[in-house]
């Protein structure tokens, strides 16, 4: 131990520290300054950036002792650096000012500063521009931005891109981040100048109601911008132990021997558990119970958990893992779904009783042979897509505790808290009521936090030791263990008449679902049902095989299988347009789903189908841009590409899709809305607060949101399938309506009017000029012993299983996108210059949050098309570091022109349907179609391989 003296945020600090402790750990675990986040732990993501003696450093690899005598600035001290330059202002945390009313697109009528005294201008503008979503990268992003502005008070967009190019934001809020930095710079240059707050990238949307439709900042934005926001690893408890997991050594092997005696004997080790110590269900799983809590007979992928340890320190836990003896007998590795289906192949997992076949999904409509017989043109191709990684910035973390009455509490970042509770209780052989799952804030999910990670393990260890146990995955562990986006092989055959009318669409899809089912059969079902694209095709036949292999499990990932099939279908459609010598917009328009169309699964589209309008808007904008660019000769390898897509909102397929929310009102004139539904950065609390405020006539700030605590909040169901705004949004809306009716009954006596005639607005209840404060009504309701809480369990419109006539889904969102790319003919490198997008989401409840989802989806699938690939060879993960998983950074951010189509859906809250996934789906094929238009080579394999592309171009080949 050495004494470390430094100044942190202006305060002198003296702590005892080991030489191998690094600064991020010292700040977080010794000083409790948990605003500094650890994303990759290897200086590859920038989340841990702090400023040491005026220089930004990655504190995750900066030995704490190097800061001896240094001045360290963390996110917690950022605001005071600004307050110090502005004499007289308070430094107590304040509340962000309400940004006022939108008068026209993007302009908010508020003169002067948006900075409250307790916020640095960067923090304030990040909040108001929507530059933070999950918030996990935000502290590092802000510190790096501060350093930029310290040295360059007026940075250009390019300068911002250089400064922030290695500070990653997986929510993809880069456009908003660039705008926020420039507005902050402007305010810092001229703090007292009057100015309007403009949100430049805000799309035009319908006129707002009192609250709904306004670009309000997130309720958790201040906490996220100041470092006060708490994610799981930010919690600590007295006597807490550190847990660690022994992972499989081989992708497929029999366990011959498992000996933990030496590990148990290591001083400081408090528990070493194996499958023998799992008292209840030995397996877990969201749909199929096929995933061992701790492996017993064999291991099926490299990330399989074999044993777990709890120890006094992380070092001891790590050393204990090295002392566990496991003898394996390696088995043949099944590394692709096509081989997995062959009868001679070894069975990896018999989870469904069909060998390696997790599920065969069959979609049939009309007569496929007749359809192709009628076709004048048939296009048939095979497409390949690899595994992809969510790369959420916050690695998985769970804390297990034994509560006083013997119950078990697990704190974690989960997309499905009630499912966690069920699975924890089953494994521990406890009743569900004996388990409490508390959701912390989640640093990104994108589908990757739906399955169990360490939740059961910490519960087991806490129970075994009687002490709190924390497990925080390293990035390596996160990458090798959690489910991925399915790798696919998709063969698509598209038939059309000479005039472009689609007559037949056939597809065979192999999905690599890896070692365990996760949500594999649902994901591949969505891939199959969307495999004819957003078009009305009379004859359809699709066969999809979701297969077990020895690769990492594949499960939910933004797009849910549709990302893969859309790439195949939209590539075929584009090729068809060229064959027929048709405008690609026109071909899509002719065949687009519209009111009265029938989908591949036999569902008649009855309402809310804005695809035609999406296509029209994108076409109009692309043609306008093309025309206006006529003067400047464009390089011959610059080209536009186009694609369209649709995506279901909600679970569908006959699954009861329900969510519950509770609204409680208080005598201080506030309300709280509660539901166990996850906020993963997408903005659920914003939407729930807005809906509740609208229905109760309260100011937005007067509504608090409590999410994801199975003791305190009712079940909101999974955060998946773009469903939360619709389903939990409706639950909150009906709960608030129910609450309002009770309050209206109370108020009607005092205002001498029928309850239905009362107006709830701006915190008052009124009728004919008479009004009472909302708070007063609540007070009187309580005096009258009326309920002040209202719970509503909402059931979405019923759906039908695949193969049964009727509606498989209660709604779809639609999108059209065009990409302008530039291709370097000497190197094969592709850059996306522009994306024009139009998205039909029913109704924009909050245009700011909506735009964040649109831009983030585009950024994610720009990576899907060009840079990302989760490389697995023979079951061995190669992409086991962030540096080896090449997601786009701010430098890849194209110009994004976004249109919103609001074709309302009658059952949706204020007409809204899902947006989380649809925004990302057309991006990949729009880019690859643009590549074809630029160089004449069809991309059949993702991601675009610039070497292969170059070879094909040189050799005059038509595909790669």
């Amino acid at each position, binding site marked *: 131990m*050495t004494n470390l003296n430094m100044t942190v945020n202006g305060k002198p600090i003296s702590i005892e520290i*080991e*030489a*191998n*402790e*690094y600064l991020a750990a010292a700040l977080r675990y010794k000083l409790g300054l948990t605003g500094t986040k*650890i994303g990759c*732990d*290897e*200086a*590859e993501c*920038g989340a841990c*950036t702090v400023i040491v003696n005026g*220089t*930004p*450093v*990655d504190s995750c*690899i*900066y*030995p704490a*002792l*190097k800061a*001896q005598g240094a001045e360290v600035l963390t996110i917690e001290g950022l605001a005071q650096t600004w307050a110090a330059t502005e004499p007289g202002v308070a430094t107590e945390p304040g509340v962000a000012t309400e940004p006022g009313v939108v008068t026209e697109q993007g302009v908010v009528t508020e003169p002067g500063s948006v900075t409250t005294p307790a916020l640095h201008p960067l923090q304030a503008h990040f909040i108001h521009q929507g530059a933070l979503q999950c918030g996990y990268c935000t502290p590092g992003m802000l510190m*790096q931005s501060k350093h930029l502005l310290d040295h360059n008070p007026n940075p250009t967009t390019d300068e911002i891109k*250089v*400064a922030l*190019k*290695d*500070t990653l934001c997986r929510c993809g809020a880069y456009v908003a981040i660039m705008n926020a930095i420039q507005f902050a710079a402007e305010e810092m240059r001229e703090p007292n100048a009057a100015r309007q707050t403009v949100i430049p990238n805000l799309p035009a949307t319908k006129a707002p109601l009192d609250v709904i439709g306004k670009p309000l900042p997130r309720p958790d934005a201040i906490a996220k911008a100041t470092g006060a926001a708490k994610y799981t690893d930010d919690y600590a408890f007295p006597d807490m132990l550190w847990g660690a997991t022994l*992972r499989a*050594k*081989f992708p497929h092997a029999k366990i011959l021997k498992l000996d933990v005696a030496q590990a148990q004997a290591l001083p400081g080790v408090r528990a070493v558990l194996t499958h023998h110590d799992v008292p209840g269900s030995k397996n877990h799983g969201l749909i199929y119970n096929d995933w061992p809590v701790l492996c017993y007979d064999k291991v099926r992928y*490299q990330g399989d958990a074999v044993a777990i340890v709890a120890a006094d320190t*992380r*070092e001891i836990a*790590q050393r204990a893992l090295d002392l566990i003896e496991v003898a394996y007998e390696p088995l043949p590795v099944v590394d692709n779904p096509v081989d997995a289906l062959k009868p001679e192949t070894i069975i990896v997992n018999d989870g469904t009783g069909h060998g390696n076949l997790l599920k065969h999904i069959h979609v049939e409509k009309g007569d496929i042979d007749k359809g192709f017989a009628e076709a004048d043109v048939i296009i048939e191709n095979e497409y390949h897509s690899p595994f992809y990684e969510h790369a959420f910035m916050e*690695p998985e973390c769970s804390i297990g505790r034994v509560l006083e009455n013997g119950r078990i509490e697990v704190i974690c970042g989960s997309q499905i808290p009630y499912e966690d509770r069920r699975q924890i209780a089953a494994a521990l052989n406890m009743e569900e009521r004996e388990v409490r799952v508390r959701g912390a804030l989640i640093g990104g999910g994108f589908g990757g936090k739906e399955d169990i990670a360490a939740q059961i393990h910490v519960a087991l260890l806490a129970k075994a030791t009687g002490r709190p146990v924390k497990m*925080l*995955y*390293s*990035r*390596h562990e996160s990458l090798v263990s959690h489910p991925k986006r399915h790798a696919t092989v998709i063969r698509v055959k598209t038939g059309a008449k000479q005039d472009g009318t689609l007559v037949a669409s056939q597809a065979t899809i192999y999905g690599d679902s890896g070692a365990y089912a996760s949500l594999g059969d649902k994901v591949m079902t969505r891939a199959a049902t969307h495999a004819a694209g957003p078009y009305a095709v009379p004859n359809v036949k699709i066969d999809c095989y979701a297969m077990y292999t020895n690769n990492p499990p594949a499960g939910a990932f933004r797009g849910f299988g549709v990302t893969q099939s859309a790439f195949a279908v939209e590539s075929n459609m584009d090729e068809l347009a060229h064959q027929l010598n048709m405008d690609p917009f026109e071909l899509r328009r002719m065949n687009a789903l519209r009111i009265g169309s029938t989908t591949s699964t036999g569902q008649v589209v009855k309402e809310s189908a804005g695809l035609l309008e999406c296509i029209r808007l994108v076409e109009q904008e692309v043609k306008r841009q093309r025309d206006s660019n006529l003067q400047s000769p464009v390089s011959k390898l610059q080209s536009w590409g186009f694609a369209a897509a649709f995506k279901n909102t909600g679970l569908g397929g006959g699954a009861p899709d329900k969510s519950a929310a509770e609204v409680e009102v208080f005598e201080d004139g506030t309300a709280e809305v509660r539901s166990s539904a996850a906020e993963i950065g997408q903005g659920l609390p914003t939407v729930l607060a807005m809906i509740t405020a609208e229905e109760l006539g309260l100011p937005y700030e007067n509504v608090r949101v409590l999410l994801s605590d199975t003791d305190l909040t009712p079940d909101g169901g999974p955060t998946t399938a773009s469903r939360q705004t619709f389903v939990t949004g409706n639950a909150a809306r009906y709960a608030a309506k129910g609450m309002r009716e009770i309050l209206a009954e109370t108020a009607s006596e005092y205002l001498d009017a029928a309850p239905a005639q009362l107006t709830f607005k701006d915190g008052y209840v009124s009728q004919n000029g008479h009004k009472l404060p909302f708070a007063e009504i609540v007070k009187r309701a309580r005096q009258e012993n009326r309920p002040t809480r209202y719970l509503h369990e909402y059931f979405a419109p019923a759906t039908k299983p695949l193969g049964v006539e009727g509606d498989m889904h209660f709604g779809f969102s639609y999108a059209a996108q065009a990409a302008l790319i530039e291709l370097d003919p*000497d*190197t094969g490198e592709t850059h996306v210059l522009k994306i024009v997008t139009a998205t039909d989401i029913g109704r924009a409840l909050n245009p700011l949050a909506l735009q964040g989802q649109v831009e983030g989806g585009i950024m994610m699938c720009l990576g899907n098309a060009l*840079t990302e690939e989760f490389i697995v060879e023979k079951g*061995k*993960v*190669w992409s*086991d*570091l962030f*540096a*080896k998983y*090449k997601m*786009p*950074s701010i*430098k*890849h951010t194209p110009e994004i022109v976004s249109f919103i189509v609001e074709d309302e859906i009658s059952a949706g809250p204020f007409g809204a349907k899902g947006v989380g996934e649809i925004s990302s789906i057309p991006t990949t094929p729009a880019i690859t179609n643009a590549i074809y238009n630029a160089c004449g080579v069809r991309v059949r394999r993702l991601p675009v391989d*610039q*070497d292969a592309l*170059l070879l094909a171009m040189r050799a005059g080949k038509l595909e790669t």
Partner: protein
Amino acid sequence: MLRLPPFEYHAPRSIEQAVNLYAQFGGAAMFAAGGTDLYPNMKRRQFTPQALIGLNGIDELRGIVQDNGITIRAGTTLSQVASHPILQSQYSALATAANLVSTPQLRAMGTLGGNLCLDTRCNYYNQEFSWRQALGFCMKKDGEICMVAPGSSRCWAVSSTDCAPVVVALDGRVRLVGPRGERVIAASDLYRDDGILYLGKERDELVTEILLPPADGTKSVYLKLRRRDSFDFPILGVAAALRFASNGEIANARIVLGGVGSRPLECVESARLLMGQKLTRELIGAAAEAAWKPARPLDNTDSTHSYRKKMTRVYVARALEALSEK
């Protein structure tokens, strides 16, 4: 989360102290300058030194001094190198290369000396400990064989420093200080064609200074190929330096490649073709063609080796075109 293995940390105040400390540990210590590559590697247990000798507290290792040419002390950070006006104007390839290393945060920590001594890299070597343990260790650390070329008796890990090809192309020299005194060697002699013993200095010698000769009108450029324009290491680096005589003929030429072998690779034939000639489109093509041939990247970094080899020709041509326009 990954933990740094335990070590002692020493913070000497002078070069002499640093070198003496190193000698005391008899090979069990490592020098740590910026540590930007060292610490992540330690977390993955590529290195488990008993002691680290931190060089940040040594004032005499910092600064850029103009003399006959220019002397850059080894502890100067990469951001200082990138933003130095004389380096930017007269040795611009070096400022460019320094500015292309990893991330802004790491350039503020990392030093020129550290970048020149950067550990060689390989897909099999730069992996987390448990990954290497599961697959079997390679000869560069804890193992016996080369995973890239299993029949090979040597290690093929790749020199991935951006600055080394530039310093070699600029005819730089480095000053080494060790327990046996000090010496100055040519920058090209700082490297060996071996993935394990990749440095041509003794382990106990410390790089203290980088000496560049007078620019004397030499124009230089550095181009870097990587998958994304983000923090990735170079999968190809091209440093080119040309001095033109008053009649427009090339009086001196050096082209050095990074990222294609275990050491910076000098394109001798390309330089020979350029000498005494005027830089025409045809000559650029011929020099690029000549540079392409000796480049022998192996399949052990990002992107395919065939692509990296092909890009050698494109990037050398682009480098020379950039110099013809300067």
